[in-house]
């Protein structure tokens, strides 16, 4: 093998005396995709921020690029050393054009005036090489998420970076866009670029990774070469234990047969949802699958009254019910866990206690107005214990928690109202493996006590692992249903066939 492009030796980082990273070694070769895995809080982002120059490592470690020791300092330090990072939240200015974004901070000028034309020409070859289907003069605001990612990659190539770090690049992408991104990553690898690929998703790591390095609690657990990459060994390295029953499904799917809790008929919003009907029974976990953009989240929003509907009616436990706002849905016992917990779910500056109690404050209040702080405290303590939410105490702001703990926090707010129907939208997105498995057993336990649960998820193994049957949506309509039989398991193929409109594959 050729010489490594990046060598990190004994790199540590502490914050206020806490070790976020302990003597980590990492070696990356040109022309490889090096997957970096670990639970949230394992130290992946700290490591990345050291490489970008956002954090300065503790003295003692060493970073070499192409054999030469380097000191990466300041936000431009990483780029100067040949390292580019593409963050989960892309860092493009949507009000500027593609060319302007690529040249951002290094604009070309002629006698003091911005040389727009020259900049557009300058980025042409790179965009062409990446197979971009948009012009350098396009405003970034008009691009899809996948196209924006391409602009970020173009920016990195334009800066002549030799190491490209990608942090969960597919989170915001559709399946097709992800595929194109993978093809591009393979092309860049062939061109000799070193790519550090951070992801939670095992299938991506299988598809792309030449090597996998796993971090846990700020320590390096180990690296696996391509032929040794196996899901169970990676999970074991990440969690530090065997995850024997990862997906948890003990409840009886037939317990509530004949007792429908939620029935939605002919729901439509005139745009993204076109006449969808579905039923969820007591104690049943129903999956709602479909490609991104199929209208699953929109349907959920219609059910809970978060978006105006043009047609459709709801029945709760056989009784017709009119729901016009999320507040009315909660009052009726229909709880919805949003897919975007930071933007639509949590109050990051407010304490865990307040976040947990938010939906039941009015119900608990004394004299209808005054907070019952003892009850709130009790409820928060119960939630922390019951869902094993890990934070210093219930008073810390929700924003300081890891993704998994934030998700459990949000879930505990919904559980506080003891919902009859629970709609979970991507319940494990951005959540680490340990918390995922905990969330699965929470779902299973809720089904056991008779809660009707609808799970929206793009993670097919997850849907298959925890659901009793799966409703599949395509372009705003229900495309069909896949049912688990005593002998016939749910399969990814059946679901994908419905989701993509290739039912003929379905026997």
């Amino acid at each position, binding site marked *: 093998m050729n010489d490594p492009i990046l060598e990190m030796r004994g790199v540590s980082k502490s*914050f*206020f*005396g*806490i*070790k*976020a990273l302990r003597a980590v070694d990492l070696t990356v070769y040109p022309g490889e995709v090096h997957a970096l895995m670990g639970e949230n*809080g394992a130290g992946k982002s700290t490591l990345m921020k050291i490489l970008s120059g956002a954090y300065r490592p503790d003295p003692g470690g060493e970073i070499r690029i192409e054999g030469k020791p380097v000191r990466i300092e300041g936000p431009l330090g990483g780029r100067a050393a040949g390292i580019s990072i593409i963050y989960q939240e892309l860092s493009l200015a949507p009000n500027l054009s593609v060319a302007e974004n690529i040249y951002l901070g290094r604009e070309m000028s002629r006698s003091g005036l911005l040389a727009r034309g020259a900049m557009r020409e300058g980025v042409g070859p790179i965009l062409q090489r990446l197979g971009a289907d948009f012009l350098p003069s396009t405003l970034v605001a008009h691009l899809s998420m996948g196209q924006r990612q391409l602009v970020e990659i173009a920016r990195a190539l334009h800066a002549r970076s030799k190491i490209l770090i990608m942090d969960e690049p597919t989170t915001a992408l559709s399946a097709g866009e992800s595929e194109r991104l993978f093809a591009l990553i393979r092309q860049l690898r062939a061109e000799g670029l070193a790519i550090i690929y951070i992801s939670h998703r095992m299938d991506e790591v299988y598809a792309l990774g030449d090597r996998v390095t796993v971090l*846990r*609690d*700020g320590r390096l657990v180990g690296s696996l070469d391509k032929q040794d990459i196996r899901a169970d060994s990676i999970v074991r390295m990440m969690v*530090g*234990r065997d*995850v024997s*029953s990862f997906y*948890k499904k003990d409840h009886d799917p037939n317990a509530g047969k004949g007792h429908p809790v939620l029935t939605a008929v002919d729901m439509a919003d005139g745009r993204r949802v076109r006449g969808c009907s579905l039923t969820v029974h007591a104690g049943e976990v129903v999956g709602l699958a479909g490609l991104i953009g199929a209208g699953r989240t929109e349907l959920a929003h219609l059910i*809970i009254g*978060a978006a105006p509907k043009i047609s459709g009616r709801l029945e709760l436990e056989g009784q017709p019910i009119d729901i016009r*706002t*999320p*507040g*009315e*849905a*909660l*009052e009726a016992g229909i709880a*919805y866990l*949003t897919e975007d917990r930071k*933007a*639509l*779910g*949590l*109050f*990051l*500056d*407010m304490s865990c206690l*307040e976040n947990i109690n*938010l*939906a039941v*404050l*009015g119900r608990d*209040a004394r004299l209808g*107005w*005054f*907070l019952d702080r003892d009850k709130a405290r009790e409820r928060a303590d119960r939630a922390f214990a019951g869902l*094993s939410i*890990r*934070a*210093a*105490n219930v*008073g*810390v*702001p929700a*924003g*300081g928690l890891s993704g998994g703990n934030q998700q459990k926090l949000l879930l505990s*707010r919904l559980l506080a109202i003891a919902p009859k129907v629970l709609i979970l939208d991507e319940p494990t997105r951005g959540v680490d493996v*340990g918390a995922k*498995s*905990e969330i699965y*057993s929470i779902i299973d*336990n809720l089904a056991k006590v008779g809660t009707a649960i609808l799970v929206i998820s793009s993670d097919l193994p997850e849907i298959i692992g925890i659901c009793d049957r799966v409703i599949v949506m395509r372009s705003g309509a229900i495309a069909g249903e896949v049912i688990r039989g005593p002998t016939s398991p749910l399969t990814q193929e059946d679901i994908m066939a419905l989701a993509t409109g290739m039912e003929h594959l379905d026997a």
Partner: protein
Amino acid sequence: MPDNAASKAQPAPTMTNGGAAEAKRQRVRVLISALGMLPVLLILCIGFHFLSDGRFFTGQNLGIVLQQAAVNTVLAAGMTFVILTGGIDLSVGSILAASAMAGLTISKLPDLGALWLPVAVLTGLGFGVVNGALIALLRLPPFIVTLGSLTAVRGLARLLGADTTVFNPSIPYAFIGNGSLTLVPGVASIPWLSVIALLVIFVSWLVLRRTVLGVHIYAVGGNESAARLAGIKVWGVLIFVYGVSGLLAGLGGAMQAARLYAANGLQLGQSYELDAITAVILGGTSFVGGIGSIWGTLIGALIIAVLSNGLILVGVSDIWQYVIKGLVIIGAVALDRYRLQGSART
């Protein structure tokens, strides 16, 4: 749940350490944000005391400071509600003027004179609710709506007195403007204006920190979409906060009217909104909403009053007072930024 048990037994050592240290940092942060500008206020007081040869810390002077701070404190309390939701209310000065005019006009009526006080307060509430309704129901930006009412209500205030100064030397309840509540006879008393201001602060604290509505106000300011999905009636919260701001501006108008026995629709309350906003910002309330406390606002209002009073005591000219006050405001907020940066979330 074997998985759960296993993961509970497995809390990584760094996590618990991190958690404890995070909690400690959190406590420090809470302390810092609770103290906020209090040190600045104390330093200003002590500084002025020495610069003015000991004339600052006298019973009489402190009474004057408290009295001067009172109206702005009341306005700033209302402004705190509004800014906590991420909004702004530019119209409080004009509402104050219109309420004072309405109150004084009523006070001159032979039989209804005693009603002037509720009329003034309700006038303010009315304007505030209109602001709130426009913002909450028509989804117009608060800055634009209250910029409009800043101008429109000012015009109404002038209309109310036919653009003249309205006097009433025998206005009922005049004591709230100029009287004092005797705490220890002959030794300590506190101006009624300040008593009102402190009561307003206390009630505000009660609402913000001890009621469901208070949590909802913080929630709307912290994340409006999440608040809506969590079932909070965001429109109700918004109408409430602008209503409170208007109501307190009305109360401020009543306080001014009782103090001056007069009001002028053109001059009264000019640019009061700026002092109120300044007090809130000095008090550490975030301009984007969701973070802040009413106690900070009280300290912010006191800083402004101490500055005005101290600069006069020291004998600084009126012109330089403007310059110095402006610089202190910028400096204080810069200091606040700097302090909070060190404790920023990682």
